[in-house]
């Protein structure tokens, strides 16, 4: 049996969990450790931390957030954003991460995937592919949160990443990301059919039927969800307003408005509904 993983993805800017649309326009939601802890209690299968500003790891407080997180959370943690060198990987793993994800560094220098997987083992290296659908129906990979056009075609790039030793692919549709309009099923179907390694689908989930589609209709091995989880969790995390005035856009927290397009279920309820829909996954007893 293959059990589908449901993976909360936490985009981090400075000390804060943030969320945007199309990977931009970031709102501050709270402290990543608090959300990660809640998701762990609710049965998250793994956690992804993504540093949105791709800071330099030598002087990066993300490592402190990682270390605080793994003291209490005993599921795999993947960390990405701005990882450029084998040293960066070492720093992140030593801080307590289990896996790292690379995008820009891999696109700029594909042999970095070979080096990293040889050095740290394939299962430690996740290649993140951020995709934008083109007018002719093909998909191109982008870097720097969708700002940099690379001209790299996604299907070939996924195959190449696998061939070079990637352990998993984290596949983001920038078009769908943050919109709540559902996954890009064509994109997921294309990549899952082309590679043998696990594919984590990301971008667009607003409700349980969206997740079911990505698995049953497009073959996702794991699903990363963000907005639909975070917006529903802000209330649960407690009164966070007023603590994050120094950085970012806190209008969302002050307003306490919810986004109607996103479901209001917490992770435990989401997994239970997926289970009821016949998706094989781990549910806590």
């Amino acid at each position, binding site marked *: 049996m293959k059990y589908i993983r449901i993976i909360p993805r936490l985009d981090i800017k400075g000390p804060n969990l943030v969320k945007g649309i199309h990977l931009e326009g970031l709102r501050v939601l709270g402290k990543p450790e608090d959300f990660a802890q809640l998701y762990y209690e609710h049965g998250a299968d793994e956690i992804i931390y993504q540093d949105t500003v791709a800071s330099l790891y030598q002087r990066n407080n993300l490592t402190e957030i990682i270390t605080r997180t793994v003291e209490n959370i005993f599921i795999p943690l993947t960390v990405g954003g701005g990882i450029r060198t084998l040293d960066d990987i070492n720093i992140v793993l030593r801080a307590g991460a289990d896996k790292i994800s690379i995008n820009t560094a891999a696109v700029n220098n594909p042999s970095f995937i070979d080096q990293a997987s040889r050095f740290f*083992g394939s299962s430690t290296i996740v290649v993140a592919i951020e995709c934008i659908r083109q007018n002719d129906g093909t998909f191109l990979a982008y870097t720097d949160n969708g700002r940099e056009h690379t001209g790299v075609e996604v299907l070939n790039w996924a195959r190449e990443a696998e061939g070079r030793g990637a352990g998993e692919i984290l596949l983001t549709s920038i078009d769908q990301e943050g919109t709540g309009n559902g996954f890009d099923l064509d994109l997921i179907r294309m990549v899952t059919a082309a590679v043998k390694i696990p594919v984590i689908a990301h971008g667009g989930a607003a409700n349980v039927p969206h997740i079911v589609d990505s698995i049953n209709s497009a073959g996702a091995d794991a699903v990363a969800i963000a907005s639909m989880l975070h917006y529903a969790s802000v209330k649960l995390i407690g009164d966070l307003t007023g603590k994050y005035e120094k950085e970012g856009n806190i209008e969302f927290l002050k307003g306490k408005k919810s986004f109607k397009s996103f479901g209001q279920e917490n992770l435990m309820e989401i997994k239970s509904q997926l289970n009821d829909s016949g998706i094989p996954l781990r549910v806590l007893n």
Partner: protein
Amino acid sequence: MDIAIIDYKMSNLHSVQAACRKVGLSSVITSDQAQILDAKIAVLPGVGAFSKAMNHLVELKLDDCIYRFIESGKPFIGICLGLQLLFDESDEFGKHTGLGIVKGKVKKFHFLENSNSKHPIPQIGWNKVQQTSTIWKDTFLGDNYNDDFMYFVHSHYVVPEDENIILSTTTYGTTEYCSAIKQDNIFATQFHPEKSGKIGIKIYEGIKNKIG
């Protein structure tokens, strides 16, 4: 020191240490033979390539150290690659000799192409362990964990010659494989208790209770 986590420069060992800390076990990450032999329990963790791992063990003279620790009769724990390395040989990228402490082989998952039920290799994620033996209760597992989910990351699985040492099996794709063994003072798992959430931490609590 309660636990020596054997460092052979292969993988992230901090998660094992974090789990020890969580349940109040003292631990040290070390390649030092005296320190390993002195500990109440030795843990051989690891993720990665079998042949490279064996090379590192030999270079650091940790193979001898492991033989001596196991001869001492104190509890020895293998996790993931640390289970596989105990076996005679692996077919990973050609044949490679292991520590030869447990009779048997390490084989790679192989599935026939079937687009309806794709099982990626490596297996990365959660899967169930099915208790197959009554010796289960004599291990750190105690009376728990039958049919529970554990976290796995692997492309290879072990095939012990002596089926009596198999504690549990797990099924991935069309393969039912051995996911934990007990041989004398050796307890080893293909899954990662330190990454298996609260259930996994209970295994560490079991270890803590056993050694007092």
